[in-house]
């Protein structure tokens, strides 16, 4: 074999080897995704959804701080930011006129996790309408969903809320 023929053969063998590795890696990653327990959390996509805004205060002016918008969930604890996914936060009126908020949280890890949540209810001027609720503990088994609910003290004065989450301690 000439030098060029040898080089060509080596290149073809290298190309074949790379192609095999790519195919195998594709299969392996596909298998891993298929066999991995649900829920499977795409943390990049979850982080991209986080949207901090400047919530106007009671005086209507824009404050020098950005935070989660009203009627949503605020993660206070950096230790669990990449461990849980807050699915949703909803609110409805109870027959007694108070406001009940509900939220579902997914544990994205393979370990049991405890989180604590509390709710601050706000009035029409974005000021607290009552004292913040006490921390309520939610136990999350691995890869499971947990739910949180809280009721307001006030009735007609309550117009919005912020739910705060931290790791249970």
């Amino acid at each position: 074999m000439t030098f060029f023929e040898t080089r060509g053969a080596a290149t073809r063998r290298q190309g074949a080897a790379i192609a095999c590795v790519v195919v195998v890696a594709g299969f392996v990653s596909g298998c891993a995704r298929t066999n991995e327990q649900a829920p499977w959390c795409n943390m990049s996509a979850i982080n991209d959804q986080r949207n901090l805004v400047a919530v106007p205060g009671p005086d209507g002016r824009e404050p020098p701080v950005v935070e989660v918008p009203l009627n949503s969930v605020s993660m206070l604890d950096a230790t669990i930011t990449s461990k849980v996914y807050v699915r949703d936060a909803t609110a409805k009126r109870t027959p007694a006129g108070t406001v009940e908020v509900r939220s579902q949280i997914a544990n994205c890890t393979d370990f049991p996790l405890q989180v604590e949540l509390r709710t601050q209810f706000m009035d029409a001027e974005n000021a607290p309408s009552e004292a913040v609720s006490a921390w309520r503990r939610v136990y999350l088994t691995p890869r499971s969903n947990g739910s949180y609910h809280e009721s307001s003290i006030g009735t007609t004065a309550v117009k919005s809320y912020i739910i705060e989450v931290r790791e249970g301690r």
Partner: protein
Amino acid sequence: MGQKSGRSWRNGLVLAAVGGMLAGCAGVDNSRGTPTVYSDPGSPGPVQGVGIESQDIVSMTDQMMRDMLSEPRLAGRKTPPNVIIDDEYFSNDSTWRADKKVITERLRVNLNRAAKGRMVFIARHVAAMVENERALKREGRVDKGTLSMTAASKGGDYRMDGHIGSVDTLNPRTGMKSRYSQISFEMVDLETGEIVWSNIYEMQKSGQDDIIYR
């Protein structure tokens, strides 16, 4: 050339230092606060065991209060009901040997403040105080005060009863202790005996240390 480069190097350093100072002024001082003996009653304190602690009492009474205010039969009536909340029928059969009044008092005080007239609270725990003053007024030994006299003090519509129970397990080899605590609350109709509201607060704690509760 050497002098020029030396000067520009020094100027660069000065600019960098000033820029760093300005950046430090504008940023958050992300350091710990000053240590203090005070701690948040709603969070675990520096001494933790398997019993009922401040954060449990705060969380428990807050949950019960909010739940009661969401019950239409208690907080949604046209005529506010007369409610009695005290420790008279709140029994403690658990291994937690502390003052159960801290639970009932916190619940009564916070509920009274939060209800804002949706419920009326009767101080049956100081009934003797009320009867004594009523007797003094009627005997003429004191004047009638500024409020109008009534034929009788208020009767209760609903009264709270409850129970604290626990289940303890202990590993004698390791000293590890686990306690399941259950605190139940009920509101009973004092005319019919009907339970109009009830709720349970439960928790399980495990630990190695032997903490003394008083």
